[in-house]
């Protein structure tokens, strides 16, 4: 974990109305019950896919639990995430074969174009970027996976066009 970016400096993702409604609904089921931190967080994670700071604050406030304890739980379990998955979740393979065949170039291209690092999501929540170990498809390297579509022998120059074409 060499990455020393401060959490509070990460992009803020606007919650959609239905998400806010959902969060409120879940919290109100457990209102004032200090012992239900984990069930509440889990339900929210499952229904909206992430736990941004604002949501953690709401949970802390309504369950009357210090914010730092909510945050502690969220960062302790890898099941919880503070970053939403994008509408298009891009996974670039960095296994040996893919790397040798230009996986690195593909990754830098995407990073530059979308302005995010692996593990992050664009502010409009459209694209998220991940790095993958060998996917066992070295024969068609370099490989990129977007949601459930597998792109083979990807040309770094074309990758963005392909990604954009989905939207």
């Amino acid at each position: 974990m060499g990455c020393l970016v401060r959490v509070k400096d990460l992009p803020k993702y606007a919650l959609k109305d239905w998400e806010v409604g959902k969060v409120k609904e879940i919290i109100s089921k457990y209102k004032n019950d200090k012992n239900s931190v984990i069930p509440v967080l889990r339900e929210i994670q499952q229904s909206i896919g992430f736990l941004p700071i604002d949501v953690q604050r709401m949970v802390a406030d309504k369950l009357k639990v210090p914010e730092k304890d909510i945050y502690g739980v969220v960062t302790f379990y890898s099941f919880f995430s503070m970053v939403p998955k994008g509408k298009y979740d891009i996974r670039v393979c960095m296994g040996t074969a893919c790397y040798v065949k230009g996986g690195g170039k593909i990754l830098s291209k995407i990073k530059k174009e979308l302005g995010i690092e692996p593990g992050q999501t664009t502010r409009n929540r459209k694209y998220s970027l991940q790095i993958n170990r060998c996917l066992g498809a070295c024969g068609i390297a370099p490989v990129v996976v977007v949601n459930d579509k597998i792109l083979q022998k990807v040309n770094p120059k074309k990758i963005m066009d392909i990604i954009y074409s989905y939207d």
Partner: protein
Amino acid sequence: MNKKAIKEEQITISINGIKINGSPGQTILEVALENDIFIPHLCYDPRINIQGACRLCLVEIEGFREAVPSCITKISQGLKIKTDTDHIRNLIKLNLELIVSDHPLDCLTCESCGNCELQDLAYLYDIDQNRFRGEVHPKKVFEDNPFIIRDNEKCILCGRCVRICDNLIGANAIGYAGRGFDCEIIPAFEQSLKDTDCIFCGNCISTCPVGALQAKPYLKKARAWETKKIQTTCPYCGVGCQINLHVKNNKIVNITSDVGKNINKGSLCVKGKFGLDFVHDSKRLTSPLKKRDGKFEKISWTNAMGSISSKLKEIIKNHGPDSIGILSSAKCTNEENFLLSRFARATIGTNNIDHCARLCHASTITGLIPTFGSGAMTNSFEDIKDSDAVIVIGSNTTEAHPVISYELINQVIEHNLKLIVIDPRKIPLTKYAYIHLQQKPGTDIAVLLGLMNVIYENDLHDTEYIDKRTENFENFINSFKEYSPEKVEQLSGVIKDDLIEAAKVYGSAKTASIFYSMGITQHTCGTENVISVANLAMMGGNVGKKGGGVNPLRGQNNVQGACDLGALPNVYSGYQYVEDNEIREKFEKEWGKKLPPKKGLTVTEMIDGALSGKIKVLYIMGENPMLSDPDILHVAQGLKNLDLLVVQDIFITETGEFADFILPSACFAEKNGTFTNTDRRIQRVNKALNPPGEAMEDWKIICRLSEKLGYNMGYSSVSEIMDEIAKVTPIYAGINYKRLNASPLQWPCTGKDHPGTDILHAKNFARGKGRFMPVEFSLPAENPDKKYPYILTTGRILYHFHTRTMTGKSEFLNLIAPMALAHINEEDGRDLNIKDGEKIRLETRRGKIEAVAKVDGNIKKGVVFIPFHFAESPANKLTNPVLDPKAKIPEYKACAVSISKV
């Protein structure tokens, strides 16, 4: 560690073959440390419950197969313990090596070098830093606040800071995040501490065994071994925390407190820890000043003393000594207050001496003397641990007496104390309250009568106690009978079920105490408020026993001492009446002077006298009535009207501006003496620095002026003054510096062998029997109406003190709290279309001021709160100078006000 341990029976154990006694409930580690037997430990802090995480405190016990952590193992009869065996040594060494392997050994540049528990242990156990040299995990540094730097690379995750912050301070500002190797301690969301509930008390720093937490203002000032460490008493509030001033080259370079020791056990608040930079402020006065043509110019001490004394002589000759008024100071030492009282009475010949306690706690005295016979806090600070329930009424303890609030919070969290908060505002303590009764300002008596009524109806009063120890209960019953919970709800807005529950908690607790402060005293009915508190305590049978009592929290560091030592118009030191012939003769003999037989004027009367021309001179030592008195425009006119105004202070204050002469005095860090804190504890003040320029200790100034006026007091040191105090003051009779240097003493201490008194009225009340006194509920003098529809109440905030003479000079405190915030309720904010952060105008029948609005749900609808510290928004332009008829204390806590947007 069980604090409710009974002290009587002793347990004998042996450590390394030596027989040692301990009390039941103590742990092996505690007993060992008490007896100077070294056992390493990194996660133990005596202020909070034990966690048992570091596994360094291992010992062997005969008959046990494995080594046990001594911090979680209680002692029992006959345990045979060995501490430093080879086996133990190896285990400890291994643990230490693991810690050191992930620690950046930056000792060369680390601020804690020479003062680091890990460094000391590594030295002692010869830790080879390379054996496990693994990956040192890069961690974050947090420094985006004015006070505290957290360098997590140095953190050994002992967890002490988190537990101190949670279980003692109650701020919940920091916690664990991440896990495994990535686990770090940080504020939620890695935000700045400024955005958390952190109160910058610095106690996380005080507990950190390594260099991970540092006080930002004291960085890179000196290495630990270059400084002289002088223990003294904090100059701010009445708690009287012991602080260590670390001094290098006549400068304070750090402030700490010894963990586990003294009244505050090593805890401090932001003012004591970070707010003492006023000492070195460039605006400190360094020579006497004389006003000529509206401007101050420097003059010599000889000239100043000459001019002041001849002016005084002239005025005494023409108008008599009673044309002179003298204001003493709750900030100065006991010795100085005693001396100024002698100066007024013997040198000048007037009883016109008073100080600002009038403005805070005069009603405590007028209320507790007729009921109990003594007007001081009945119990001790340490007693909180013995209470089962505590009522806090009219005291925002977290802000005004922070270290007491820590103890309350700790007892709630770790030892099941039931806390009842009665306050119009949601103060920080309410978070830990079992019940919060949120009354309208000025309706305390109704609430208290209501509590008594429920207690009586439910038969929860202590009839045996009432029969044996008190009088007048039968007549008293009628006074609360009609205050049914329904009626009280109508009058005060307190929900009736809450009132009933609170009464039941207080009434059925084995021992319960009541803490109160200015929310009770600063009303026209202040005396009645105090009496009601006293009545309630007696009904519960709670006065005179450990963990019980009526405990007024005194505001300033030495307000108790200023009262004790006779800076009051009607009494000499020790509350001995000036109008009592026998007593007066005693003082006349001691001081070799005829003394005035009639009691003198109070502060408020002196100001009126200045206006009417009756008072010609005010001599003011370390007070600032221009900000602290009610209706300051009135004060200004009074001061302008004087023939002579002399002010002794460390800065030019708002009052100083009006002075003809200002005499530069030494501050607390530059003098020797004593302060008496809120639980009657007399503690040493020790000189750590030389005063700037020609500034002089107040007591020396008084002696010198007195000599000039032809009356030589003849003291050569403060210790001699204390000896004289002891001689003429029965409650201080056993006090001397030799004893105080060993440990503080609580008065009454009536002889050289008297151990001092931790609980007043233990066998008998000071007046014999406790007296129930009926009181009537009355509304505040001024109530909301069409023109002024809101209730204004005033008070203090954590980051400032009194009139900001000291805290206003603190760069760091002002970064956090630079301006006056007027707190208003969110619903009122909506009605008035005022948002958080907007400028508003507050107007009363007396004046108007501007302030910035803080709009939230913490204050009751219809009420506005503003702090009184700020000259730019002087709250006391607004407050109502109507006085409590008995105590003559002004009604700061309730008047009618209108609010508008600017």
